[in-house]
């Protein structure tokens, strides 16, 4: 047990240090050099790393621990975003009330959806959550609830944003962008020039990073708690749990709500960084994305979802930037015909073809490496260390 505790603490410290130093780590190449396109250290992208990390950690609490595959988690993300923007519209640009509301509202939604969906398991559960999420997407996209009540609630396909005509009862003169109690604005960035390098330190990013570390810590505690053990028991054999006279539903509902709150928080942070909320965040492809992240990183492991979120967002950014001329530059050393052939093959996978790469990669992971990148890393380590593998408490069987 001591071993696990040290292991967990080590992991937490690693995540914290990585998050702290991300502006350096993600910008390893000097400005203007040929490799600068592999830099990912700009605030917007780093914020997304953290936000999707939180989202994936929350999803993993549900899927990784209990094996219930929800295909509708993006609905909570959207609810969180809308809550924060509504707080901007009603109060002021302070993000704190919005984030609290986001967590509460998404928790309430998760409670309602979970109460219904958790009556069924397996594929039925997936389809029920999918149906709920699509329903909420339809409601948000056409602002059905708002039309029903005779007002605007989600502002339809335009997306919700702050207008000058909004009441904003607590607004001060100096407020123009999301901030935290007036301490700092989310968009304020300090740029450090070091020779040819430049590093951006963004206030919003560090807030996200702090929350991510906190959320990561909470998820460790849940994994190691008796509650987490109970959830894992549900995953391995729910029928047997029921036969022992234990009602698993409250535990399932609790973890579903927690997981929904994580998603709501992530959505809230999204609107905190950029004061907009749109319905497309709730579409089922967005739910699919978080599933991809979690599986790619390693479902059921602590660090997996964070790795997966970072991996997908990083490569999405890098791959989308590569175009034909870059490719021709890379393969320029080959003879012409070979060069064209190589470019022809690779261009399917870069630029707008990034989703194809993602799909192929995802299939390969599911087929050959069900434990995700974390399992891959462990296998590689095993080969190198040749030692008897450490007992890996976070590792568990693929979901049922």
């Amino acid at each position, binding site marked *: 047990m001591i071993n696990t505790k040290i292991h967990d603490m080590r992991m937490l410290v690693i995540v914290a240090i990585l998050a702290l130093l991300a502006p350096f780590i993600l910008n390893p190449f000097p400005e203007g050099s040929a490799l600068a396109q592999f830099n990912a250290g700009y605030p917007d992208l780093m914020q997304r790393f953290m936000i999707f990390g939180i989202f994936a950690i929350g999803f993993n609490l549900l899927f990784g621990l209990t*094996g219930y*595959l929800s295909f509708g988690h993006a609905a909570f993300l959207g609810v969180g975003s809308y809550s924060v923007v509504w707080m901007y519209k009603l109060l002021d640009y302070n993000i704190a009330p919005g984030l609290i509301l986001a967590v509460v509202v998404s928790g309430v939604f998760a409670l309602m959806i979970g109460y*219904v969906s958790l*009556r*069924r*398991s*397996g*594929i*039925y559960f*997936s*389809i*029920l959550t*999918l*149906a*709920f999420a*699509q*329903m909420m997407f*339809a*409601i948000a996209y*056409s602002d*059905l609830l708002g*039309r*029903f009540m005779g007002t605007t609630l989600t502002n339809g396909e335009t997306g919700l944003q702050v207008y000058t005509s909004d009441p904003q009862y607590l607004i001060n003169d100096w407020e123009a962008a999301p901030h935290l109690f007036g301490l700092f604005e989310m968009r304020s960035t300090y740029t450090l020039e070091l020779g040819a390098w430049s590093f951006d330190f963004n206030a919003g990013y560090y807030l996200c990073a702090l929350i991510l570390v906190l959320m990561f810590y909470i998820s460790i505690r849940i994994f190691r708690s008796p509650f987490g053990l109970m959830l894992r028991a549900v995953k391995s054999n729910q*029928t047997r749990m029921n036969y022992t006279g234990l009602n698993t539903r409250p535990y399932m509902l609790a973890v579903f709500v927690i997981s929904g709150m994580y998603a709501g928080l992530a959505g809230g942070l999204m609107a905190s960084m950029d004061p907009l909320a749109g319905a497309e965040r709730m579409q*089922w*492809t967005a739910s*699919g994305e978080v*599933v991809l992240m979690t*599986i790619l990183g390693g479902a059921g492991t602590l660090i997996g979802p964070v790795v997966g979120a970072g991996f997908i967002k990083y490569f999405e950014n890098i791959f989308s930037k590569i175009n034909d001329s870059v490719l021709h530059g890379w393969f320029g050393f080959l003879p012409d015909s070979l060069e064209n052939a190589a470019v022809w093959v690779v261009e*399917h996978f870069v630029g*707008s*073809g990034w*989703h*194809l790469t*993602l*799909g*192929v990669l*995802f*299939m390969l992971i*599911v*087929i050959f490496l*069900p434990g995700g990148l974390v399992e891959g890393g462990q296998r590689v380590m095993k080969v190198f260390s040749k030692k008897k593998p450490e007992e890996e408490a976070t590792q568990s069987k*693929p*979901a*049922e």
Partner: protein
Amino acid sequence: MDAIILQILNGLDKGSAYALIALGLTLIFGTLGVVNFAHGALFMIGAFCAVTLSKILTLSYITIDESQTDFLGNPLQVKTPYIEGWFGPEMGASIIDWAVPLAILFSIPIMIAIGFIMERGLIKHFYKRPHADQILVTFGLAIVMQEIIKHYYGANPIPTPAPDVFKGSFDFGTMLGFDPNVIIYPYWRLIYFAFSALIVGAVFAFLQFTTFGMVVRAGMADRETVGLLGINIDKRFTIMFGIAAAVAGLAGVMYAPINSPNYHMGMDFLVLSFVVVVVGGMGSLPGAVAAGFLLGILESFASMNVIKDIFPGIDQIVIYLVAIVILLTRPRGLMGRKGVMED
């Protein structure tokens, strides 16, 4: 009364598409026990078979007509499809016009081949894996298929018209004694409905009246025993997968003139088809077909103005609402069998 008939008719074509996709999904689920998230992509590929065939048929060579000039004063370049060159202009033009119906023949071998490759190459390895893994890998496959299509055909919908003969509308009202032009219904949708009824009938007849179908039904009921009797059930299930893929593909081919195909049409239909399968009852073929038509008609009723005035936008969520209510009151769906997917 006329409004009700009109809505029922309007619901039929969408319902037909749901029913055909749901039928294929259920066939795969009932035989192989695999939840196929790539089924919508098969529907989409079917629609793109129609697009491809009409592109192939209109491949053209360019001749220069000296007698005419274009707006720059150069000799006019005339594009003539090869097919018109081979069969003469009239015959060629009518072949091009009939591209979509011809695509039915074109798509069947393609879809069956895709189904075979999918089952033998990928799904086979997932029988013993949990359902979540099956969902995930087929979801990945759906993304891959979708992106390949997007890469070659672009992201915009490609209009694929039906033959000219079917362009007009059929006046149902006069037949039933209403005023003319009250209940009109496009010919192609009528054909789509008839076609899907034919396909559904063919699949059921195949399962019910052939020895092959009998063995497949036996395998659906108890795979192990059939295997012990010395029958190679795997081979038959692979063929059923091919048939299911072909059914989805045909649904797509015929749907192309109704909605111009684009690369994500499959995903849009897939979510609803899953709902249809669940409402109909997982593993029940009649249930899937009945629920498909039922939900299609329900959706078109919900889009009536009378109802929309009371609940704005109800047409977009009614299917999900019904699915939720049905799953909570009749957890096995309308015609679900006991013991299917109840682990």
